[in-house]
């Protein structure tokens, strides 16, 4: 069953330099226990998509259109008070910087017990037990003793794990994780990925994992969505997309990563640079950088292929047919 269904989401920023269509018609659905990897160029709207789902977009930004159906209920229409009740309870977010979650002047136990009791009227003792169990789930040794520490007494990797533990506290149905391991070392990163994998498998929590790192997506995600200039340009089963990318941008992105060719061989470059989001070209936003672009690409924006299919592509000249393995 779908935990989340995002339909034609549009989030725009109304700036002096013009309207920035940071998210401009994003569609995707997420089932229980499913992990969706959200990748794409810097500035393509990945974080804004995540913030929109949690209704954390601040002015001059605003969700201007579309639906965010969480278990059938449209979050875009929900009163702020009800949204607050869902956030940190049924829906949680993990940020790149754990200090976005943690309060530097409060002890970990105070923060965690408060987070439990804000949504669940249990005794302090029960809340404390739940905090201990969440900390041990994310691999923090002797959690009961660490509870009375302040955030500064933890290393960066530990702080991130505490932030993840807080996201897990109330057994959310959906977690949006925005580059939570980018600043961490590979050894700590894989520890966190292991915990996240178990979580999706054991509790059915659905995950949106935003990252730059396609290799992480390869190992973690069931499905991947590639964003460019505010839109999803390709989505499908992770293996399909990574082995036979269909959108020229996905092809370029994959080619630019070291590790598949010969050591020392030249890497494929995507020419040009990311578009100015306040002044997007009229046709396909990728056309100025695309090796396959023709006149049609420069004038008509391509639509996305059939929503029902597993593999979707937004391109006039895809390199693979949409449809994929059903």
């Amino acid at each position: 069953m779908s935990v989340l269904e995002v339909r034609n989401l549009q989030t725009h920023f109304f700036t002096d330099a013009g309207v920035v269509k940071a998210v401009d018609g994003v569609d995707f659905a997420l089932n229980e226990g499913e992990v969706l990897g959200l990748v794409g160029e810097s500035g393509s709207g990945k974080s804004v998509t995540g913030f929109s789902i949690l209704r954390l977009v601040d002015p001059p930004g605003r969700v201007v259109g579309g639906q965010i159906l969480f278990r059938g209920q449209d979050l875009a229409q929900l009163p702020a008070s009800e949204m607050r009740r869902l956030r940190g309870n049924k829906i949680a977010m993990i940020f790149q910087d754990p200090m976005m979650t943690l309060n530097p002047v409060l002890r970990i136990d105070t923060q965690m017990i408060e987070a439990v009791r804000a949504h669940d009227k249990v005794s302090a003792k029960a809340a404390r037990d739940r905090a201990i169990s969440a900390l041990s789930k994310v691999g923090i040794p002797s959690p009961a003793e660490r509870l009375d520490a302040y955030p500064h007494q933890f290393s960066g990797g530990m702080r991130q794990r505490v932030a993840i533990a807080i996201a897990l506290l109330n057994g959310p149905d959906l977690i949006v994780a925005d580059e939570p391991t980018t600043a961490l070392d590979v050894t700590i990163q894989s520890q966190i990925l292991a915990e996240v994998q178990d979580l999706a498998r054991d509790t059915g929590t659905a995950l949106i994992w935003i990252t730059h790192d396609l290799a992480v997506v390869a190992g973690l995600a069931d499905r991947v969505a590639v964003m460019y200039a505010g839109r999803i340009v390709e989505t499908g089963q992770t293996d399909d997309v990574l082995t036979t990318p269909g959108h020229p941008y996905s092809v370029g992105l994959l080619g630019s990563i070291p590790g598949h060719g010969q050591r020392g061989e030249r890497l494929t470059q995507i020419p040009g640079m990311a578009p100015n989001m306040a002044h997007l070209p009229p046709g396909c936003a990728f056309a100025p950088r695309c090796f396959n672009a023709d006149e049609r690409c420069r004038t008509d924006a391509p639509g996305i292929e059939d929503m029902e299919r597993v593999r979707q592509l937004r391109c006039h000249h895809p390199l693979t047919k949409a449809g994929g393995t059903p």
Partner: protein
Amino acid sequence: MTAMLELSDVSRQFVKKLDSIEKLAKKLGASVSESCVNAVDSASFHIARGEVVGLVGESGCGKSTLGRMVAGLLPVSGGTIRFEGVDVTDAASADAKTARLRIQMIFQDPMSSLNPRMKVEEIVGEAAVYHGLTTRREMSAYVAGILRQVGLDPAYAQRFPHQFSGGQRQRIGIARALAVRPEFLICDESIAALDVSIQAQVINLFQDLRRELDLTYLFISHDLSVVEHIADRVVVMYLGRIVEIASTEALFDDPQHPYTQALIDQVPRLGAGRQTYRTIKGEIPSPLAPPPGCHFHPRCPMAGPRCTRDTPVLRNDAGRSVACHLHDGGTE
């Protein structure tokens, strides 16, 4: 092969000042105090002319500190660094100064290392004029040549840094380093802040420059797949100490030190399909209170009693250097 750069027992200590969170905590009555870190602890290795040596290890293990000492931006606390035989750690010597000009460093964050109020032409040309590589009158032509070398349109010379994309800014930083005609480049996480598609441009540029200008590199990065791509040899650090040195091929195919093994095991790989991530036990210990003996022993699956007692030495055996008791008489 004679060494271009040679480090012998190079060390650096820091007194660790409190960060903002700690200062705040102290004001609120928590007991935090300043302490001493051995950021780099007796590092010895060499780099041959024309070689690319990768330097890898966890955050805080001392990579940047080592790089900054080699670049002459930070004095050593002990040991010597020789560049073509000249001791560059001797700040007073004139030979050291000329030698140091031939070593340049490219920094992690292209924006914060470029003066926002200077035009590209001045950023790139300033040091070259100062060191007499060109004159103020000929600077424009000189800079134009260097900008072309890094793939930037010379017409950009009159622009300011904020008018460029991340990848272009990183090229300006590279142009600035190249302007003084260095032979040795230290790249400290020079591509970490860039978008994946832009990273490829800069990696390719490094490879081209290596060929065209016969450059030698110390390439610092925590991205192992990038290091695997670009380096001939790799130096692995853990908590201030070098634990393994090997050719890139040998290191990735057959890592010897348990830490290197764990590290290479954890690198996410594109072609590997769905992975089951494994948890390695143990926390990265604080550099302020590193474990005795082998610093890695609390996390090491192979550790024995000797590992908690004696510090393993970096031993060279058949071209591979490893600092681990397993490779030096056993862990009992």
